[in-house]
Protein backbone atom coordinates (compact mmCIF):
# COMPACT_ATOMS: atom_id res chain seq x y z
CA UNK A 1 0.00 0.00 0.00
CA UNK A 2 2.81 2.40 0.77
CA UNK A 3 4.43 1.91 -2.62
CA UNK A 4 6.06 4.99 -4.03
CA UNK A 5 5.43 5.90 -7.66
CA UNK A 6 8.91 4.70 -8.57
CA UNK A 7 8.23 1.25 -7.20
CA UNK A 8 4.89 1.22 -8.97
CA UNK A 9 6.61 2.10 -12.23
CA UNK A 10 9.12 -0.71 -11.65
CA UNK A 11 6.26 -3.19 -11.21
CA UNK A 12 4.76 -2.14 -14.55
CA UNK A 13 8.20 -2.26 -16.20
CA UNK A 14 8.97 -5.73 -14.86
CA UNK A 15 5.80 -7.16 -16.36
CA UNK A 16 6.70 -5.73 -19.79
CA UNK A 17 8.39 -8.62 -21.61
CA UNK A 18 9.97 -6.68 -24.47
CA UNK A 19 11.34 -4.05 -22.09
CA UNK A 20 12.87 -6.74 -19.90
CA UNK A 21 14.39 -8.45 -22.95
CA UNK A 22 15.79 -5.09 -24.04
CA UNK A 23 17.24 -4.49 -20.57
CA UNK A 24 18.90 -7.91 -20.64
CA UNK A 25 20.50 -7.37 -24.06
CA UNK A 26 21.59 -3.88 -23.02
CA UNK A 27 23.06 -5.21 -19.79
CA UNK A 28 25.10 -7.79 -21.72
CA UNK A 29 26.32 -5.14 -24.16
CA UNK A 30 27.30 -2.81 -21.32
CA UNK A 31 29.11 -5.62 -19.49
CA UNK A 32 30.91 -6.54 -22.69
CA UNK A 33 32.02 -2.97 -23.21
CA UNK A 34 33.24 -2.76 -19.60
CA UNK A 35 35.23 -5.99 -19.36
CA UNK A 36 35.49 -6.90 -23.07
CA UNK A 37 38.73 -5.10 -23.90
CA UNK A 38 40.59 -7.18 -21.30
CA UNK A 39 39.23 -10.37 -22.81
CA UNK A 40 39.83 -9.27 -26.38
CA UNK A 41 42.22 -11.85 -27.85
CA UNK A 42 44.29 -9.34 -29.85
CA UNK A 43 45.16 -5.68 -30.13
CA UNK A 44 42.40 -4.11 -32.25
CA UNK A 45 44.93 -2.43 -34.52
CA UNK A 46 47.26 -5.42 -34.92
CA UNK A 47 47.36 -6.61 -38.53
CA UNK A 48 47.90 -10.31 -39.27
CA UNK A 49 49.08 -10.02 -42.85
CA UNK A 50 48.85 -13.78 -43.37
CA UNK A 51 45.22 -13.94 -42.19
CA UNK A 52 43.51 -11.28 -44.26
CA UNK A 53 39.73 -11.78 -44.44
CA UNK A 54 39.69 -15.01 -42.43
CA UNK A 55 36.04 -16.01 -42.02
CA UNK A 56 34.44 -16.59 -38.58
CA UNK A 57 34.39 -19.95 -36.82
CA UNK A 58 31.10 -21.14 -38.29
CA UNK A 59 32.59 -21.11 -41.79
CA UNK A 60 34.48 -24.23 -42.90
CA UNK A 61 37.79 -22.43 -43.03
CA UNK A 62 37.29 -20.40 -39.82
CA UNK A 63 40.12 -20.24 -37.35
CA UNK A 64 39.95 -20.61 -33.59
CA UNK A 65 42.34 -17.73 -32.90
CA UNK A 66 40.09 -15.24 -34.70
CA UNK A 67 36.61 -16.49 -33.72
CA UNK A 68 34.71 -13.77 -35.56
CA UNK A 69 37.10 -13.58 -38.48
CA UNK A 70 39.39 -10.77 -39.61
CA UNK A 71 38.93 -7.75 -41.83
CA UNK A 72 40.69 -6.71 -45.02
CA UNK A 73 43.82 -5.72 -43.11
CA UNK A 74 43.91 -8.94 -41.09
CA UNK A 75 42.70 -7.33 -37.86
CA UNK A 76 40.71 -9.50 -35.44
CA UNK A 77 36.97 -8.64 -35.70
CA UNK A 78 36.11 -9.73 -32.15
CA UNK A 79 38.78 -7.49 -30.61
CA UNK A 80 37.71 -4.58 -32.77
CA UNK A 81 34.04 -5.06 -31.92
CA UNK A 82 34.74 -5.20 -28.19
CA UNK A 83 36.92 -2.10 -28.27
CA UNK A 84 34.33 -0.44 -30.51
CA UNK A 85 31.61 -1.24 -27.98
CA UNK A 86 33.52 0.51 -25.23
CA UNK A 87 34.24 3.52 -27.42
CA UNK A 88 30.68 3.80 -28.71
CA UNK A 89 29.05 3.49 -25.31
CA UNK A 90 31.54 5.84 -23.66
CA UNK A 91 31.01 8.50 -26.31
CA UNK A 92 27.24 8.02 -26.27
CA UNK A 93 27.03 8.41 -22.50
CA UNK A 94 29.27 11.49 -22.54
CA UNK A 95 27.32 13.07 -25.37
CA UNK A 96 23.91 12.38 -23.86
CA UNK A 97 24.81 13.62 -20.40
CA UNK A 98 26.46 16.76 -21.74
CA UNK A 99 23.42 17.47 -23.92
CA UNK A 100 21.02 16.67 -21.06
CA UNK A 101 22.85 18.97 -18.65
CA UNK A 102 22.86 21.93 -21.04
CA UNK A 103 19.37 21.22 -22.35
CA UNK A 104 17.77 20.87 -18.93
CA UNK A 105 19.37 24.12 -17.72
CA UNK A 106 18.14 26.03 -20.78
CA UNK A 107 14.71 24.37 -20.56
CA UNK A 108 14.30 25.20 -16.87
CA UNK A 109 15.36 28.79 -17.50
CA UNK A 110 12.94 29.00 -20.43
CA UNK A 111 10.03 27.89 -18.25
CA UNK A 112 10.57 30.98 -16.10
CA UNK A 113 11.34 33.48 -18.87
CA UNK A 114 8.75 36.02 -19.91
CA UNK A 115 6.55 34.84 -22.72
CA UNK A 116 8.18 36.86 -25.50
CA UNK A 117 11.71 35.60 -24.86
CA UNK A 118 10.43 32.10 -24.29
CA UNK A 119 8.61 32.08 -27.61
CA UNK A 120 11.76 33.26 -29.37
CA UNK A 121 13.92 30.60 -27.71
CA UNK A 122 11.44 27.78 -28.23
CA UNK A 123 10.87 28.63 -31.89
CA UNK A 124 14.64 28.53 -32.38
CA UNK A 125 14.64 25.06 -30.80
CA UNK A 126 11.79 24.06 -33.15
CA UNK A 127 13.92 25.28 -36.04
CA UNK A 128 16.78 23.01 -34.95
CA UNK A 129 14.37 20.12 -34.40
CA UNK A 130 12.81 20.53 -37.82
CA UNK A 131 16.07 19.31 -39.40
CA UNK A 132 16.82 15.58 -39.18
CA UNK A 133 19.40 15.16 -36.41
CA UNK A 134 21.95 13.48 -38.68
CA UNK A 135 21.66 16.19 -41.32
CA UNK A 136 22.22 18.87 -38.72
CA UNK A 137 25.20 16.95 -37.31
CA UNK A 138 26.69 16.67 -40.80
CA UNK A 139 26.20 20.41 -41.32
CA UNK A 140 27.93 21.18 -38.03
CA UNK A 141 30.83 18.82 -38.79
CA UNK A 142 31.12 20.42 -42.22
CA UNK A 143 31.63 23.76 -40.48
CA UNK A 144 33.99 22.72 -37.68
CA UNK A 145 35.78 19.97 -39.60
CA UNK A 146 35.72 16.15 -39.45
CA UNK A 147 37.22 14.04 -36.66
CA UNK A 148 35.97 12.28 -33.57
CA UNK A 149 35.98 15.24 -31.10
CA UNK A 150 34.14 17.46 -33.56
CA UNK A 151 31.59 14.73 -34.29
CA UNK A 152 30.99 14.46 -30.56
CA UNK A 153 30.41 18.22 -30.23
CA UNK A 154 28.06 18.11 -33.22
CA UNK A 155 25.95 15.33 -31.74
CA UNK A 156 25.80 17.15 -28.38
CA UNK A 157 24.47 20.25 -30.13
CA UNK A 158 21.98 18.18 -32.09
CA UNK A 159 20.59 16.55 -28.93
CA UNK A 160 20.20 19.72 -26.87
CA UNK A 161 16.90 21.00 -28.37
CA UNK A 162 15.05 17.80 -27.42
CA UNK A 163 16.01 18.24 -23.79
CA UNK A 164 15.13 21.93 -23.81
CA UNK A 165 11.69 21.14 -25.19
CA UNK A 166 10.96 18.25 -22.87
CA UNK A 167 12.17 20.13 -19.78
CA UNK A 168 10.36 23.34 -20.62
CA UNK A 169 7.18 21.47 -21.54
CA UNK A 170 7.20 19.32 -18.43
CA UNK A 171 7.92 22.25 -16.09
CA UNK A 172 5.24 24.43 -17.71
CA UNK A 173 2.75 21.61 -17.41
CA UNK A 174 3.58 21.08 -13.75
CA UNK A 175 3.45 24.81 -12.97
CA UNK A 176 -0.19 24.87 -14.07
CA UNK A 177 -1.21 22.17 -11.62
CA UNK A 178 -3.03 22.79 -8.36
CA UNK A 179 -0.34 21.29 -6.17
CA UNK A 180 2.13 23.94 -7.33
CA UNK A 181 -0.28 26.68 -6.32
CA UNK A 182 -0.92 24.85 -3.03
CA UNK A 183 2.82 24.65 -2.38
CA UNK A 184 3.26 28.34 -3.17
CA UNK A 185 0.51 29.07 -0.67
CA UNK A 186 2.43 26.92 1.85
CA UNK A 187 5.06 29.64 1.55
CA UNK A 188 7.60 27.82 -0.59
CA UNK A 189 9.94 30.09 -2.55
CA UNK A 190 10.81 29.77 -6.23
CA UNK A 191 13.92 27.62 -5.74
CA UNK A 192 12.35 25.32 -3.19
CA UNK A 193 9.27 24.88 -5.35
CA UNK A 194 11.36 23.98 -8.39
CA UNK A 195 13.87 21.66 -6.72
CA UNK A 196 11.74 19.98 -4.06
CA UNK A 197 8.37 19.77 -5.71
CA UNK A 198 8.45 20.22 -9.49
CA UNK A 199 11.76 18.45 -10.17
CA UNK A 200 10.71 14.99 -8.86
CA UNK A 201 7.61 15.21 -11.03
CA UNK A 202 9.48 15.86 -14.27
CA UNK A 203 12.20 13.23 -13.73
CA UNK A 204 10.15 10.46 -15.44
CA UNK A 205 9.78 12.55 -18.60
CA UNK A 206 13.52 13.30 -18.54
CA UNK A 207 14.49 9.65 -18.04
CA UNK A 208 12.41 8.64 -21.05
CA UNK A 209 13.98 11.41 -23.14
CA UNK A 210 17.43 10.35 -21.90
CA UNK A 211 16.96 6.76 -23.12
CA UNK A 212 15.76 7.81 -26.56
CA UNK A 213 18.64 10.24 -26.79
CA UNK A 214 21.04 7.36 -26.15
CA UNK A 215 19.85 5.57 -29.27
CA UNK A 216 19.90 8.75 -31.38
CA UNK A 217 23.40 9.60 -30.18
CA UNK A 218 24.75 6.10 -30.78
CA UNK A 219 23.27 6.01 -34.26
CA UNK A 220 24.45 9.51 -35.18
CA UNK A 221 28.00 8.92 -33.94
CA UNK A 222 28.12 5.68 -35.93
CA UNK A 223 26.63 7.37 -38.98
CA UNK A 224 29.19 10.16 -38.86
CA UNK A 225 31.90 7.51 -38.57
CA UNK A 226 30.44 5.68 -41.54
CA UNK A 227 30.41 8.86 -43.60
CA UNK A 228 34.04 9.47 -42.70
CA UNK A 229 33.19 12.59 -40.69
CA UNK A 230 33.58 11.08 -37.22
CA UNK A 231 36.07 8.54 -35.93
CA UNK A 232 38.92 8.12 -38.43
CA UNK A 233 40.64 4.82 -39.22
CA UNK A 234 42.36 2.98 -37.63
CA UNK A 235 40.15 3.72 -34.58
CA UNK A 236 37.93 0.71 -33.86
CA UNK A 237 34.50 2.33 -34.01
CA UNK A 238 31.40 0.53 -35.26
CA UNK A 239 30.41 3.11 -37.87
CA UNK A 240 33.96 3.42 -39.18
CA UNK A 241 34.26 -0.39 -39.32
CA UNK A 242 31.10 -0.51 -41.44
CA UNK A 243 32.45 2.02 -43.89
CA UNK A 244 35.86 0.32 -44.19
CA UNK A 245 34.17 -3.02 -44.92
CA UNK A 246 31.81 -1.62 -47.53
CA UNK A 247 33.89 -2.87 -50.45
CA UNK A 248 34.00 -6.47 -49.20
CA UNK A 249 30.35 -7.13 -48.47
CA UNK A 250 30.03 -9.60 -51.36
CA UNK A 251 32.86 -11.97 -50.50
CA UNK A 252 33.44 -11.21 -46.79
CA UNK A 253 29.95 -10.37 -45.48
CA UNK A 254 30.97 -10.78 -41.82
CA UNK A 255 33.11 -7.64 -41.96
CA UNK A 256 29.99 -5.57 -42.45
CA UNK A 257 27.33 -7.73 -40.82
CA UNK A 258 28.98 -7.91 -37.42
CA UNK A 259 29.41 -4.18 -36.68
CA UNK A 260 25.97 -3.58 -38.23
CA UNK A 261 24.48 -6.20 -35.96
CA UNK A 262 26.21 -4.62 -32.94
CA UNK A 263 24.74 -1.19 -33.73
CA UNK A 264 21.33 -2.71 -34.46
CA UNK A 265 21.16 -4.72 -31.22
CA UNK A 266 22.32 -1.82 -29.07
CA UNK A 267 19.88 0.68 -30.57
CA UNK A 268 17.04 -1.86 -30.48
CA UNK A 269 17.61 -2.72 -26.83
CA UNK A 270 17.85 0.95 -25.82
CA UNK A 271 14.60 1.68 -27.65
CA UNK A 272 12.84 -1.29 -26.03
CA UNK A 273 13.95 -0.06 -22.62
CA UNK A 274 12.83 3.48 -23.51
CA UNK A 275 9.40 2.24 -24.61
CA UNK A 276 9.08 0.24 -21.42
CA UNK A 277 10.04 3.23 -19.28
CA UNK A 278 7.55 5.46 -21.07
CA UNK A 279 4.76 2.97 -20.46
CA UNK A 280 5.80 2.47 -16.86
CA UNK A 281 5.81 6.18 -16.09
CA UNK A 282 2.62 6.91 -18.01
CA UNK A 283 0.09 8.01 -15.41
CA UNK A 284 -2.83 6.84 -17.55
CA UNK A 285 -1.71 3.23 -17.31
CA UNK A 286 -0.45 3.58 -13.81
CA UNK A 287 -3.17 4.95 -11.60
Amino acid at each position, binding site marked *: *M*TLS*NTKLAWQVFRRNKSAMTGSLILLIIVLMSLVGPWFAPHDPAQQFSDKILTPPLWYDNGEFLTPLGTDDLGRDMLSRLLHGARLSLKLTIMVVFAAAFIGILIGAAAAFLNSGLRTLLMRFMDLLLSLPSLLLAIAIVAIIGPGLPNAVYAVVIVLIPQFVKVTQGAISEELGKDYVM*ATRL*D*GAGHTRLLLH*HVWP*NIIPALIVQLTFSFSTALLDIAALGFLGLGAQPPIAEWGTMLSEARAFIQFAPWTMTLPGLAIFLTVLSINLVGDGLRDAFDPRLNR
Partner: protein
Amino acid sequence: MPSLLSAKLLRKSYKVSNNPFKQRYLEVLKGVSFTLSAGQTLAVVGESGSGKSTLARILVGAEKPDSGELLFEDSNILKDSAFSWYRNIRMIFQNPAASLNPRATIRQSLEEPLINAKLGNSQSRKDRIAEVLDLVGLRPEYADRYPHTFSGGQRQRIAIARALMLNPKVIVADEPVSALDVSVQAQIINLLLDLQDQLDLAYVFISHDLGLVQHFSDKVLVMHNGEQKEYGRVGEVFSQPQSKYTIELLNASASYRKVIEK
Protein backbone atom coordinates in the same frame (compact mmCIF):
# COMPACT_ATOMS: atom_id res chain seq x y z
CA MET B 1 -19.08 41.25 16.30
CA PRO B 2 -15.66 42.55 15.22
CA SER B 3 -14.72 41.69 11.69
CA LEU B 4 -11.87 39.28 11.13
CA LEU B 5 -11.61 39.55 7.37
CA SER B 6 -13.20 42.16 5.21
CA ALA B 7 -12.94 42.98 1.55
CA LYS B 8 -13.68 46.39 0.08
CA LEU B 9 -14.45 46.79 -3.62
CA LEU B 10 -12.03 44.17 -4.90
CA ARG B 11 -11.52 44.45 -8.65
CA LYS B 12 -9.59 42.23 -10.99
CA SER B 13 -9.28 41.98 -14.74
CA TYR B 14 -7.25 39.74 -16.99
CA LYS B 15 -5.62 40.56 -20.28
CA VAL B 16 -7.34 38.42 -22.89
CA SER B 17 -5.46 39.40 -26.04
CA ASN B 18 -1.72 39.42 -26.48
CA ASN B 19 -1.85 41.83 -29.39
CA PRO B 20 0.07 44.90 -28.20
CA PHE B 21 -1.98 47.21 -30.43
CA LYS B 22 -5.35 45.93 -29.40
CA GLN B 23 -5.25 45.10 -25.72
CA ARG B 24 -8.47 43.69 -24.38
CA TYR B 25 -9.24 43.08 -20.78
CA LEU B 26 -11.88 40.89 -19.20
CA GLU B 27 -13.20 42.15 -15.90
CA VAL B 28 -13.72 39.13 -13.68
CA LEU B 29 -14.34 40.97 -10.43
CA LYS B 30 -16.28 44.23 -10.55
CA GLY B 31 -16.05 45.46 -6.98
CA VAL B 32 -16.73 42.79 -4.38
CA SER B 33 -17.10 43.63 -0.69
CA PHE B 34 -17.93 41.61 2.42
CA THR B 35 -17.07 41.24 6.07
CA LEU B 36 -16.52 38.03 7.96
CA SER B 37 -16.21 37.46 11.73
CA ALA B 38 -14.40 34.67 13.56
CA GLY B 39 -16.33 31.43 13.59
CA GLN B 40 -18.64 32.53 10.78
CA THR B 41 -19.16 31.16 7.32
CA LEU B 42 -19.56 33.24 4.20
CA ALA B 43 -20.87 31.37 1.19
CA VAL B 44 -20.02 32.66 -2.27
CA VAL B 45 -22.43 31.34 -4.89
CA GLY B 46 -22.75 31.83 -8.61
CA GLU B 47 -22.44 29.96 -11.86
CA SER B 48 -19.12 29.00 -13.46
CA GLY B 49 -17.27 32.02 -14.75
CA SER B 50 -18.86 34.33 -12.20
CA GLY B 51 -15.51 35.15 -10.59
CA LYS B 52 -15.87 32.96 -7.50
CA SER B 53 -12.56 31.21 -7.90
CA THR B 54 -10.72 34.43 -8.71
CA LEU B 55 -12.07 35.87 -5.48
CA ALA B 56 -10.82 32.78 -3.62
CA ARG B 57 -7.36 33.12 -5.13
CA ILE B 58 -7.19 36.77 -4.16
CA LEU B 59 -8.23 36.01 -0.58
CA VAL B 60 -5.45 33.46 -0.06
CA GLY B 61 -2.82 35.59 -1.74
CA ALA B 62 -2.30 33.64 -4.93
CA GLU B 63 -3.20 36.74 -6.92
CA LYS B 64 -3.27 40.47 -6.34
CA PRO B 65 -6.42 42.44 -7.10
CA ASP B 66 -6.13 45.51 -9.35
CA SER B 67 -7.75 47.68 -6.73
CA GLY B 68 -9.63 47.42 -3.46
CA GLU B 69 -8.72 46.60 0.10
CA LEU B 70 -8.45 43.37 2.01
CA LEU B 71 -8.41 43.83 5.78
CA PHE B 72 -7.35 41.03 8.09
CA GLU B 73 -7.66 41.96 11.78
CA ASP B 74 -7.86 45.60 10.63
CA SER B 75 -4.62 45.70 8.69
CA ASN B 76 -4.54 45.90 4.92
CA ILE B 77 -2.80 42.65 4.03
CA LEU B 78 -2.50 43.56 0.37
CA LYS B 79 0.37 45.80 1.47
CA ASP B 80 1.86 43.19 3.82
CA SER B 81 4.57 40.80 2.91
CA ALA B 82 3.26 37.38 1.94
CA PHE B 83 4.56 35.91 5.16
CA SER B 84 1.89 36.62 7.77
CA TRP B 85 -0.66 36.14 5.05
CA TYR B 86 -0.36 32.51 4.16
CA ARG B 87 -0.31 31.54 7.81
CA ASN B 88 -3.69 33.00 8.69
CA ILE B 89 -5.74 32.51 5.54
CA ARG B 90 -5.45 29.05 4.00
CA MET B 91 -7.07 27.38 1.06
CA ILE B 92 -8.74 24.04 0.41
CA PHE B 93 -8.85 23.20 -3.28
CA GLN B 94 -11.69 21.62 -5.20
CA ASN B 95 -9.86 18.51 -6.34
CA PRO B 96 -7.64 16.92 -3.69
CA ALA B 97 -6.13 14.56 -6.27
CA ALA B 98 -4.62 17.57 -8.03
CA SER B 99 -3.74 19.71 -5.02
CA LEU B 100 -1.47 17.10 -3.39
CA ASN B 101 1.95 16.54 -4.92
CA PRO B 102 1.78 12.95 -6.27
CA ARG B 103 5.48 12.36 -5.57
CA ALA B 104 5.48 13.55 -1.99
CA THR B 105 4.35 11.53 1.01
CA ILE B 106 1.55 12.94 3.13
CA ARG B 107 4.17 13.84 5.73
CA GLN B 108 6.19 15.84 3.21
CA SER B 109 3.09 17.71 2.05
CA LEU B 110 1.93 18.48 5.58
CA GLU B 111 5.41 19.49 6.74
CA GLU B 112 5.86 22.01 3.93
CA PRO B 113 4.04 24.96 5.57
CA LEU B 114 5.83 24.30 8.88
CA ILE B 115 9.24 24.24 7.20
CA ASN B 116 8.57 27.42 5.27
CA ALA B 117 7.29 29.17 8.38
CA LYS B 118 10.42 27.91 10.22
CA LEU B 119 8.30 26.41 12.99
CA GLY B 120 9.60 23.76 15.36
CA ASN B 121 12.19 21.03 14.98
CA SER B 122 11.66 17.72 13.23
CA GLN B 123 10.20 16.05 16.34
CA SER B 124 7.70 18.81 17.08
CA ARG B 125 6.71 18.89 13.42
CA LYS B 126 6.12 15.15 13.53
CA ASP B 127 3.92 15.57 16.60
CA ARG B 128 2.00 18.38 14.95
CA ILE B 129 1.36 16.26 11.84
CA ALA B 130 0.04 13.40 13.99
CA GLU B 131 -2.13 15.83 15.92
CA VAL B 132 -3.66 17.42 12.83
CA LEU B 133 -4.20 14.05 11.10
CA ASP B 134 -6.10 12.97 14.20
CA LEU B 135 -8.11 16.19 14.05
CA VAL B 136 -9.33 15.41 10.52
CA GLY B 137 -10.07 11.79 11.42
CA LEU B 138 -7.07 10.04 9.86
CA ARG B 139 -4.58 7.69 11.48
CA PRO B 140 -1.10 9.18 12.13
CA GLU B 141 0.63 6.23 10.43
CA TYR B 142 -0.98 7.32 7.14
CA ALA B 143 1.65 10.08 7.02
CA ASP B 144 4.20 7.92 5.23
CA ARG B 145 1.91 6.93 2.37
CA TYR B 146 1.53 8.56 -1.01
CA PRO B 147 -1.65 10.41 -2.12
CA HIS B 148 -2.63 7.80 -4.72
CA THR B 149 -3.15 5.20 -2.00
CA PHE B 150 -6.09 7.13 -0.54
CA SER B 151 -9.74 7.52 -1.50
CA GLY B 152 -11.11 10.88 -2.62
CA GLY B 153 -12.66 11.60 0.77
CA GLN B 154 -9.45 10.72 2.61
CA ARG B 155 -7.46 12.92 0.25
CA GLN B 156 -9.75 15.84 0.94
CA ARG B 157 -9.22 15.23 4.67
CA ILE B 158 -5.47 15.43 4.01
CA ALA B 159 -5.97 18.68 2.12
CA ILE B 160 -7.93 20.03 5.07
CA ALA B 161 -5.14 18.90 7.40
CA ARG B 162 -2.64 20.79 5.27
CA ALA B 163 -4.76 23.93 5.55
CA LEU B 164 -4.91 23.52 9.34
CA MET B 165 -1.18 22.94 9.92
CA LEU B 166 -0.43 26.57 10.78
CA ASN B 167 -3.49 27.21 12.96
CA PRO B 168 -5.13 29.60 10.50
CA LYS B 169 -8.09 31.80 11.35
CA VAL B 170 -9.74 31.79 7.94
CA ILE B 171 -10.10 28.90 5.52
CA VAL B 172 -11.12 29.53 1.94
CA ALA B 173 -12.71 26.40 0.51
CA ASP B 174 -13.20 26.39 -3.26
CA GLU B 175 -16.01 23.87 -3.84
CA PRO B 176 -14.37 21.43 -1.41
CA VAL B 177 -16.92 18.64 -1.91
CA SER B 178 -17.98 18.93 -5.54
CA ALA B 179 -15.29 16.51 -6.75
CA LEU B 180 -16.34 13.88 -4.21
CA ASP B 181 -18.92 11.10 -4.10
CA VAL B 182 -22.29 12.17 -2.73
CA SER B 183 -21.91 9.72 0.16
CA VAL B 184 -18.59 11.29 1.15
CA GLN B 185 -19.73 14.90 0.72
CA ALA B 186 -21.78 14.84 3.95
CA GLN B 187 -18.83 13.45 5.93
CA ILE B 188 -16.52 16.21 4.73
CA ILE B 189 -19.14 18.91 5.41
CA ASN B 190 -19.65 17.56 8.93
CA LEU B 191 -15.90 17.51 9.46
CA LEU B 192 -15.67 21.15 8.38
CA LEU B 193 -18.51 22.07 10.77
CA ASP B 194 -16.86 20.19 13.68
CA LEU B 195 -13.54 21.88 12.99
CA GLN B 196 -15.26 25.26 12.92
CA ASP B 197 -16.69 24.64 16.40
CA GLN B 198 -13.43 23.32 17.82
CA LEU B 199 -11.06 25.86 16.34
CA ASP B 200 -13.31 28.91 15.90
CA LEU B 201 -12.50 29.00 12.18
CA ALA B 202 -14.05 31.41 9.72
CA TYR B 203 -14.89 29.88 6.34
CA VAL B 204 -15.24 31.42 2.94
CA PHE B 205 -17.17 28.65 1.25
CA ILE B 206 -17.37 28.74 -2.50
CA SER B 207 -20.16 26.63 -3.88
CA HIS B 208 -22.94 26.34 -6.39
CA ASP B 209 -25.03 24.03 -4.24
CA LEU B 210 -27.66 26.32 -2.75
CA GLY B 211 -29.13 23.65 -0.50
CA LEU B 212 -25.75 23.10 1.09
CA VAL B 213 -25.15 26.84 1.44
CA GLN B 214 -28.45 27.31 3.25
CA HIS B 215 -27.56 24.63 5.76
CA PHE B 216 -23.91 25.57 6.15
CA SER B 217 -23.40 29.30 6.20
CA ASP B 218 -24.21 32.52 8.02
CA LYS B 219 -23.83 34.97 5.16
CA VAL B 220 -24.13 34.59 1.45
CA LEU B 221 -22.63 36.53 -1.44
CA VAL B 222 -24.26 35.98 -4.82
CA MET B 223 -22.07 36.68 -7.84
CA HIS B 224 -22.85 36.87 -11.54
CA ASN B 225 -20.35 37.83 -14.25
CA GLY B 226 -18.01 39.30 -11.66
CA GLU B 227 -20.70 41.49 -10.16
CA GLN B 228 -21.86 41.26 -6.59
CA LYS B 229 -25.60 40.72 -7.05
CA GLU B 230 -26.59 40.20 -3.47
CA TYR B 231 -24.96 40.05 -0.06
CA GLY B 232 -26.55 39.44 3.33
CA ARG B 233 -27.58 36.95 5.98
CA VAL B 234 -28.57 33.56 4.60
CA GLY B 235 -32.11 33.64 6.00
CA GLU B 236 -32.85 37.04 4.50
CA VAL B 237 -31.33 36.35 1.10
CA PHE B 238 -33.11 33.04 0.70
CA SER B 239 -36.51 34.23 1.98
CA GLN B 240 -36.53 37.71 0.43
CA PRO B 241 -34.13 37.80 -2.48
CA GLN B 242 -33.68 41.33 -3.78
CA SER B 243 -31.98 40.73 -7.10
CA LYS B 244 -33.54 39.14 -10.14
CA TYR B 245 -30.52 36.87 -10.59
CA THR B 246 -30.83 35.43 -7.07
CA ILE B 247 -34.50 34.62 -7.71
CA GLU B 248 -33.55 32.84 -10.94
CA LEU B 249 -30.85 30.90 -9.14
CA LEU B 250 -33.21 29.86 -6.35
CA ASN B 251 -35.91 28.80 -8.82
CA ALA B 252 -33.44 26.79 -10.85
CA SER B 253 -32.25 25.04 -7.72
CA ALA B 254 -35.83 24.35 -6.56
CA SER B 255 -36.92 22.87 -9.91
CA TYR B 256 -33.73 20.81 -10.02
CA ARG B 257 -34.53 19.37 -6.62
CA LYS B 258 -38.09 18.54 -7.76
CA VAL B 259 -36.70 16.57 -10.69
CA ILE B 260 -34.33 14.72 -8.39
CA GLU B 261 -37.07 13.90 -5.86
CA LYS B 262 -39.38 12.50 -8.55
